[in-house]
């Protein structure tokens, strides 16, 4: 069976996020106030062929950790998703 999955990759807590910080600093000048804690991350959509959901998730998780992120600075999680 084919499952649609989403892998979210974000910086680990405490790791500097210059991109998020830069965006956050720019917001007031654009008229967006009250927006804080901006963090920039990546997400990947993919289709995985697997016997069941659990296997698909396991495969995506392995992929996320081995290829799509560097666990030293990033967290990666896989979830089932429908394609938007």
């Amino acid at each position, binding site marked *: 069976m084919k499952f649609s999955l989403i892998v979210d990759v974000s910086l680990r807590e405490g790791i500097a996020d*210059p*991109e998020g910080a830069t965006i956050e600093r*720019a917001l007031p000048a*654009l008229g967006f106030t009250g927006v804080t804690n901006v963090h920039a991350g990546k997400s990947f959509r993919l289709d995985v062929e697997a016997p069941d959901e659990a296997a698909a998730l396991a495969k995506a998780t392995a992929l996320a950790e081995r290829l799509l992120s560097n666990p030293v600075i990033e967290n990666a999680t896989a979830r089932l998703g429908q394609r938007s």
Partner: protein
Amino acid sequence: MTRIGVVVFPGSNCEYDAVAGVSQLGAQAELVWHSQTDLSAFDGIILPGGFAHGDYLRPGALARFSPVMEAVARFAAEGGPVLGICNGFQVLTEAGLLPGALQKNRGLTFLCQPTTVIVTSTHSVLTSGAILGQELVIPINHFSGAFTCDDATLKTLEDNGQVVLRYKDNPNGSRDDIAGVANLAGNVVGLMPHPERAMSTLLGSADGRVLLASFVTANVPAA
């Protein structure tokens, strides 16, 4: 003497090179800090290369909100010559002053190398002094330089002669080999290659002179 304003965003880095380029051609160039909103002193505006606002989010995404950009839009609307080089091109597309968008290079790496571009329209402030079909050796220097747009936009660009430069040997996956485009009036132009880096044979090529010379003496020819 032609007075050229070279816009400096925090993170721009080719501003001195742009100044040097047009100065060599007899123009008087001046840096314009991005918070400035009055461009009336200038005959032409250059948005130089670099990484405005660090290119965070997307190249040009934050820069287009800089105060100077409203002034650039007015300047352009009044027919003033505006040139975006590399990052400047990205800013102009983000600001909606030029069509399309610039995506990551096909190979997903930054590319700094000489390219050969072909002049495919002389109806622009950048190419008016060049010859149709002329080949120019000009370096590129970018990560997000692959021009992209939808089919309808592409057709309009082609029908109106707005594609001003094409790569001879597409280095980055740019749609239809597009290296530079102009707006319909031809007074706003963006290109990914750096003509200011091709101003003398000591540095490898002087082929950029014909482009910047057109810009400095900008007169938009009738279509």
